[in-house]
C-alpha cells in the first residue's frame, strides 16, 4: 500500500474543507492535504448554481460555483495539495487514513492533525416511512439538483416537494425556470424549515403553492410516480383523513432534513452528540480525540456557507497549532448546555481559560419559533453573562452569541454554561 504523510489532512473539499486547509496553511502547517471523493473541488457548491453565497464574508452575492472558486484559488495559492476522486475508507489509529482511488489504489495517509469536513447528507424517504408504492420518480432535492445542474437531465415534469428545507425551496424555483411544473410544496410543520429569504424569493415570488401543516400520506404508481395522496395534519403531525386528496405528479422531491455525515467519525470512535448528529467539539472545533478537529456541516447543519467557512477556518488554524506546538495542555473543561427553548448548542464544551486568549462563539437553534422580541442569554451557573435582544427566534435560523475575553474571569470557576432563548 502506498504511504503518504502530511501535517494536516482534511477529509472533503466542500466549503469547510477548503477553508480548513487554507486556515491550516495560513497558520503555518507545512504540508496540508485535502482528500476529496468527487472529481472536482467544492463539495456540493458546484451544483448550487443559484446566488446568495458570500454575503457575510465577501459582502457580495455569489453563486455556489463562484464562492467555491474563490476558496479554491485561496487554497491553491497557499499550496494546499489535493487528492480528488479519492474516498477515505477508514480513520485508523493515530490519525492514519486509509483511502482509495483508481490511479493509485489503496493508500495510507499519516497526518499530525486531521480536520473532518465531510458535510452532511439528505434524509431519505425510508426515514419517514411514507406509505405507498416504490416507483421511480422519488429523489432527494439534492440528487435532483445534481441531475439537473451537473448531469443536464430533468428527472420529471410535474413535481411535488415534501418538506421545506432550503434545497427544496431553491429547487422549486429552479424547476419552474427549467420549464417543469411544481404542483406544490408540503410541510408537516406549521412553519417552513428553511430560510425566510428562500421562502420569499423561491416560493412566494414564484407562486408555488405552499401547504403548511400538510404532508404526503401515500405514494401511488407502480413503475413511475403517478400521483400522491396528501393530507392536512393536526397539531401532533397526524394526518386528518377527511382532508386527504390526490395530487397528480410524476416526481416527488424530498427536502426533509440534513444529517451530518459521520460514518467515518463513528467508526473511528469519535464521540458523537446524539442531538446534533455531529462530533462533540470545543471552542476550537477540537473533537474529543486529540488532534482531530471537525468543522462545517459535519458538526451541525448551518444555514449559510459563510458560517461553515468561519468554523472551518478556526478548525484549520487550530489543527496547524496542534502540529506546530503539540497538544495543548487540556485544562479544565466545562459543559455548555441547552436551556429554555434551545434545541442544541455548539460547542458542547469549552475550556474556560482559553477565553483569556480569544472569544468563543456559541451557536444554537431554538426549539419553537418566537415571532416577537426575545432574549438570547448565556448563563454561568445561573448568573447571566450575556443577554442579546433579537427581533424573533426561528428554528430555521441559527443564532450565534459571542463571549468576549473580558468575561474570562466570570467563567473561570463556573461548572456549566447554559444557553436560553425566551420572550423579552
Amino acid at each position, binding site marked *: *500500500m502506498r504511504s503518504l504523510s502530511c501535517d494536516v489532512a482534511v477529509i472533503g473539499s466542500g466549503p469547510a474543507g477548503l477553508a480548513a486547509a487554507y486556515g491550516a496553511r495560513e497558520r503555518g502547517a507545512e504540508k496540508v492535504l485535502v482528500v476529496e*471523493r468527487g472529481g472536482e473541488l467544492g463539495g456540493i457548491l458546484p451544483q448550487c448554481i443559484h446566488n446568495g453565497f458570500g454575503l457575510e464574508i465577501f459582502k457580495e452575492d455569489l453563486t455556489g460555483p463562484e464562492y467555491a472558486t474563490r476558496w479554491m484559488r485561496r487554497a491553491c495559492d497557499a499550496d494546499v495539495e489535493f487528492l480528488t*476522486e479519492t*474516498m477515505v*475508507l477508514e480513520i485508523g489509529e493515530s490519525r492514519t487514513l*486509509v483511502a*482509495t*482511488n*483508481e*490511479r*493509485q*489504489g*489503496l493508500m495510507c495517509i499519516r497526518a499530525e492533525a486531521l480536520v473532518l469536513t465531510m458535510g452532511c*447528507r*439528505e434524509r*431519505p*424517504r*425510508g*426515514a419517514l*416511512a411514507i*406509505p*405507498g*408504492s*416504490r*416507483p*421511480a420518480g422519488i*429523489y*432527494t432535492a*439534492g*440528487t435532483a439538483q*445534481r*441531475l*439537473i445542474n*451537473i*448531469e*443536464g*437531465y*430533468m*428527472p*420529471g*415534469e410535474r413535481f411535488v416537494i415534501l418538506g421545506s428545507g432550503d434545497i427544496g425551496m431553491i429547487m422549486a424555483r429552479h424547476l419552474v425556470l*427549467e*420549464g*417543469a411544473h411544481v404542483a406544490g410544496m408540503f410541510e408537516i410543520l406549521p412553519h417552513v424549515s428553511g430560510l425566510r429569504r428562500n421562502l420569499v424569493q423561491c416560493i412566494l415570488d414564484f407562486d408555488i403553492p405552499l401547504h403548511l401543516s400538510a404532508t404526503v*400520506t*401515500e405514494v401511488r404508481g*407502480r*413503475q*413511475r410516480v403517478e400521483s400522491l395522496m396528501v393530507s392536512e395534519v393536526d397539531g401532533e403531525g397526524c*394526518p386528518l383523513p377527511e382532508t386527504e386528496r390526490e395530487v397528480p405528479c*410524476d416526481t416527488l422531491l424530498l427536502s426533509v432534513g440534513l444529517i451530518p455525515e459521520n*460514518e467515518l467519525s463513528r467508526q473511528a470512535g469519535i464521540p458523537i452528540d446524539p442531538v446534533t448528529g455531529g462530533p462533540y467539539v470545543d471552542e476550537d472545533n477540537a473533537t474529543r480525540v486529540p488532534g482531530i478537529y471537525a468543522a462545517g456541516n459535519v458538526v451541525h447543519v448551518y444555514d449559510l456557507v459563510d458560517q461553515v467557512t468561519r468554523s472551518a477556518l478556526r478548525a484549520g488554524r487550530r489543527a496547524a497549532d496542534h502540529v506546530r506546538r503539540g497538544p495543548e495542555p487540556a485544562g479544565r473543561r466545562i459543559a455548555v448546555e441547552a436551556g429554555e427553548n434551545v434545541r442544541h448548542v455548539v460547542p458542547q464544551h469549552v475550556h474556560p481559560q482559553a477565553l483569556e486568549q480569544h472569544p468563543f462563539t456559541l451557536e444554537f437553534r431554538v426549539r419553537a419559533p418566537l415571532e416577537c422580541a426575545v432574549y438570547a442569554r448565556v448563563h454561568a451557573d445561573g448568573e447571566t453573562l450575556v443577554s442579546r435582544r433579537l427581533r424573533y427566534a426561528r428554528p430555521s435560523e441559527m443564532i450565534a452569541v459571542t463571549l468576549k475575553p473580558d468575561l474570562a474571569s466570570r467563567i473561570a470557576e463556573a461548572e456549566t454554561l447554559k444557553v436560553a432563548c425566551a420572550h423579552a
Partner: protein
Amino acid sequence: MADKTYDIIIIGAGVVGSLIARTLSRYRLHVLLLDKASDVGEGATKANTGIVHGGYNAEPGSLKAQLNARGNPMFDKLCVQLDVPFERCGTYVVGVTPQDRHTLRDLYRRGKENDVPDLHLIDGPEMRRREPAINEDTVGALYSGTGGIVDPFELCIAAAENAVMNGVEVALETEVLDFVQDDEVVRGVVTNRGTYRSRWTIISAGLWADELMHRAGLNSFEIKPRKGEYFVLDRVASEQVHNVLFPCPTPVSKGILVTRTVHDNVILGPNADVIEDKEDLRTTASGLAEVMEGARKLVPDLDQEQAIRTFAGLRAGGNRGDFVIEIPEEVSGLVILAGIESPGLTSSPAIAEYVTHLLRESGLPLVDRPDYDPIRQDIPRFADLSREEQQSLIEQDPRYGRVICRCETVTEGEVVAACHRPIPARTYDAVKRRTRVGTGRCQGAFDTPLVIEIMARELGVSPLEITKQGPGSRFLQRGTKEVPS
C-alpha cells in the same frame, strides 16, 4: 429461438424456479427459464425475510415439513458452491406472556415430531443474557440451532447465473399468455415474445401459479395473496439486535420478527394482511404501525428513526394449506408448484430436487453433463475484502478503486461487473440487488446519478433509457435544454 423445442420450460425465475433450473442444468437438457419481470427474483423472492427455518413450525407429515427438513441442511454446501452469504446462526421463538410458555412447549414437541435437530427450550434469564435488548417480560424461548439467515435475492441470482453458466437460457420481460396445448397435453407456451415449444413445462410462478393453472385447465387451486410489510433499519441497529427473534406464532403467520440480516442490517416484519390484488405492493400507515408495534413486543427500544427503508411483499399462499408440487393427472407435460409460501425459501433447494425426482419418475431421461460446473463466483465485494485483497483487485482493474456508494462502499468495478454477468443487470434495481449499491442509509441519494452514467456507458444506451425496475420506470425525462413534451 422461437422454433426451437426445449426439453423444459420453467415459468417464473424466483428462487424456486431458479434453483430448479440450476438443478436440471446438470443434465443433458435444453432448459428455458422465463420471467415476465426485468430481472430474476422480482416476485415473492425479493420481499422475503431471508430466514432458513429449523422446521419446528410445519404441520408434521406435510410436504412443508418434509421439504423444510430436507432443504435446511442443503444450505451449507449450496451457499458455498454459489458464493452466497449464509449464516447458520440459530433462531429464537420468544415467549413474552405466561400463555406463550405453552406455545413454546407445543412448538418444541412439533419440532421433535418433525425430527428437527438442535432444538432447546431456554428460560427468560438465559434469553436476556443472549439478547440483552429483549423484552423484560420474556418468559422463555425456543432455540433452533439449525436455523439461519441468507440473502434471498442473492441466492436466486446466484442459482440462475449458475444455471446459465451450465447452458440454461433465460428470457426476461417474457410473459406467458397461454399454453400450446393439444387436448390434455401441454407442448409449450405462448408469450409476448413468441411461442416456445417444450416437452415439459414447469409452473413456478408464485402469485400467478393459479391463473396459469386455470389456463391449462386445472381449476381447483386458488392463490390467496397475503401482504407483509417491513422496515429495514440502519446497521447501527445491529448493535442492539444480534439474533433472529420470532414471536410466538399465530394460526395465520409466524408473526412479526426482529432479525439481523446477513448484511448486518436489522429488519422488522412482516405483518399479514389478506388482499385481492396480486400487484398491490403498497405499504400502509396502519400496516407499518402494526409492524413497529409488533417488533417492539420483542425489542421494546427499537428506534424508528433508524429506519432506512420500508417495503411490502406478497406471500403466495394457497387454498390447500400445504405446498402443491405435482404432475397433475388431468394434463400431461406439466409440473405445477403452487402455494409455495413460508418455508418456501428454506425448502427451495429440496423443492428443486423433488421436482427433478418427479420428472425422472415420469420418464424424463436425466443424463449427466460431463462439463457441469456447480461453482458460481460472486462479483468481488470490495467492502468485504482485506486491504491486501482490495489492493490486488484495484491492480487488476482500477475501477475497483473508485467508490461510488459511500454507505455500502461499493465500487465502480462492481457496478460494471453487474452489467456483464451471466444474467446482466439491466435496471438500477438489478444492479442494486447484485452489488448492494443504494441499500445503505442514504438510499441512493449519492450513487444514483453515478450508477445511471456507468450503466448507460456499459449498456451502450442513453442515460434517458436507464430504468429503476424495467419498462415505465425511467429516472430521467429529457435533457434540460430540451422542450418539455
